[in-house]
């Protein structure tokens, strides 16, 4: 696995060609290239993600024509706070790559990411899902509405600061949630994940 590098005569693998193309297109904007378990991740700034995706889709020798997945990861203690992760696949060449952007300034409630819906229509629902569950806004998305939660939901459940047990909702039940920035009623959200001090029922032995 790890010692497949440094072989001089071997032709560049698809992953290497992808990274080379990314460097051609973005130059120094390629922030980081990570290889882990035979998977390549290219980390780029959010402003350039659409340009890179367009280039990868149109590159004649790679042709990433299939957007397998878009998702996000929340790192509440980190700035920028969110990862948006794209899994690309090429049906003609069988190449795979993962792209990642990091967004969210300190205290920014709803960070913005450029949409790739115009490049792959498949991104439509995946981006809606992230908008719904993480609260990231995709600029240029034609139909950015909630997809899983009810339309009048005000919070974003997959964020790490959203308690697993949910909130105790004041009546009326729907639409009566706690808005952003307001303190929770006492006694709610007992099982928040990874809060300092742990929580009852949390089996993480580090705590």
């Amino acid at each position, binding site marked *: 696995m790890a010692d497949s590098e440094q072989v001089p005569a071997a032709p560049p693998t698809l992953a290497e060609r992808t990274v080379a193309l990314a460097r051609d297109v973005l130059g120094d904007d390629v922030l980081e290239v990570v290889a*882990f*378990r035979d*998977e390549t*991740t290219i980390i780029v700034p959010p402003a350039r993600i659409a340009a890179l995706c367009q280039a990868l889709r149109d590159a004649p020798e790679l042709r990433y*024509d*299939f*957007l*397998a*997945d878009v*998702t996000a*990861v*929340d790192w509440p203690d980190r700035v920028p706070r969110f990862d948006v*992760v794209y*899994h690309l696949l090429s*049906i003609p060449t*069988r190449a*795979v790559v*993962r792209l990642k952007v990091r967004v969210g300034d300190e205290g920014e409630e709803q960070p913005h990411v450029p949409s790739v819906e115009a490049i*792959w*229509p*498949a991104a*439509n*629902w995946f981006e809606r899902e992230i908008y719904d*569950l993480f609260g990231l806004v995709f600029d240029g998305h034609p139909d950015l509405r*909630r*997809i*899983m*939660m*009810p*339309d*009048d939901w005000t919070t974003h*459940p*997959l964020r*790490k600061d*959203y308690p*697993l047990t949910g909130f105790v909702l004041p009546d009326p039940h729907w639409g009566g949630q706690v808005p952003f920035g307001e303190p929770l009623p006492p006694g709610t959200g007992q*099982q928040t*994940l990874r809060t300092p001090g742990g929580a009852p029922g*949390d*089996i*993480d*032995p*580090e705590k």
Partner: protein
Amino acid sequence: MQLDEQRILETESSVQLDATRREDTMTINMGPQHPSTHGVLRLILTLEGETVVKAIPEIGYLHTGIEKTAEAKSYFQALVLTDRMDYLAPLSNNLGYALAVEKLLGITDGIPPKAQFARVALVELQRIASHLVWLGTHALDLGAQSVFLYAFRERELILDIFELCSGVRLMTSYIMPGGLQADLPDGFAAKVRDFIRIFPARLREYHDLLTNNRLWISRTKGIGPLTAEQAIAFGASGPVLRGSGVAWDVRKMFPYSSYEQFDFEIPVGTNGDTYDRYLVRMLEMDQSLKIVQQSLDGMPEGRWQINDPKVVPPPKWQVATNMESLIHHFKLFTEGYRPPVGEVYQRIESPKGEIGFYLVSDGSAKPYRMHVRGPSFANLQALPLMIEGQLLSDVVASIGSIDIVLGEVDR
């Protein structure tokens, strides 16, 4: 409620901008409690007479927060959540999750051959079972009631095999990270061979009932067309993609769990209509049976789990007699294992298409993030392409041909 009305009005106004609009445009709601939406899918349809001019799928009625729940479970516990996504193919979900965790742990190469072959046999049986439910309900939607009863009769045989292995018919959790939960039981091979003997004739019966049936052809041929370009652009996978003529199967393209040792073909359609998707699934059942046969014939001897007490619990008799094993057992069930910091994406070919597990580890005993790329979720996105411009009565045929499971769409 108000928002819904507003959206329906918006839909209507967008239709009104269309120059070809007729006076009798009407917006109707289909589902979520509609027997032919295979769960709780809701469609907002704008009709001109009987023709659908615009369709907006609404999902989320079965959103259970599985991804959120998994973040609070250890890797070992999160396995049972995966059964409950695509509840018609729990073993396929188990396999995808198990492979993702194994990749994260870096133990993929350590999985014994017997476990790999058994996994292949089980997920292929699961594929047949899932396709049987699809076949039965799809035919039922279009008015062929007897196929439904026959398909469920055969599915029961497969569920009996699962019950023999794991003690449960549906939510087996039998495939787990590191191997299988338990060794294959004694009567397994005999029971599967029975099924292999019985099933081809039954499959021919289904073909006799539907494949050349004029009613079936007129309800499915040319209905819900999807071109290959559209299917790829919208992220469709599995039989929907193959029905449109793209020979893409994760089992062939990125072999996992020793699929590279099996000999099978990928059935591919040409027209991308409901009939082709039907045929692709019917032919896939043949191929799956072939794979199960090969798996039984070539089933290696040996362990059914990786020999690593940090990942799989030691046998019970050792726990009772051996101090080390007791410690391993205790650590595994109270704490679990800690994969290194990193992230993996594992794709497998589930009966519905490409199911992908994206796991992020922060070095703790719980997945920091588990995201599931549900094949039904992506396939369902292509539904408006299939049904816009078609008749209202064909909407049901198109929904059936995608084979959605809302548990996986909404997660």
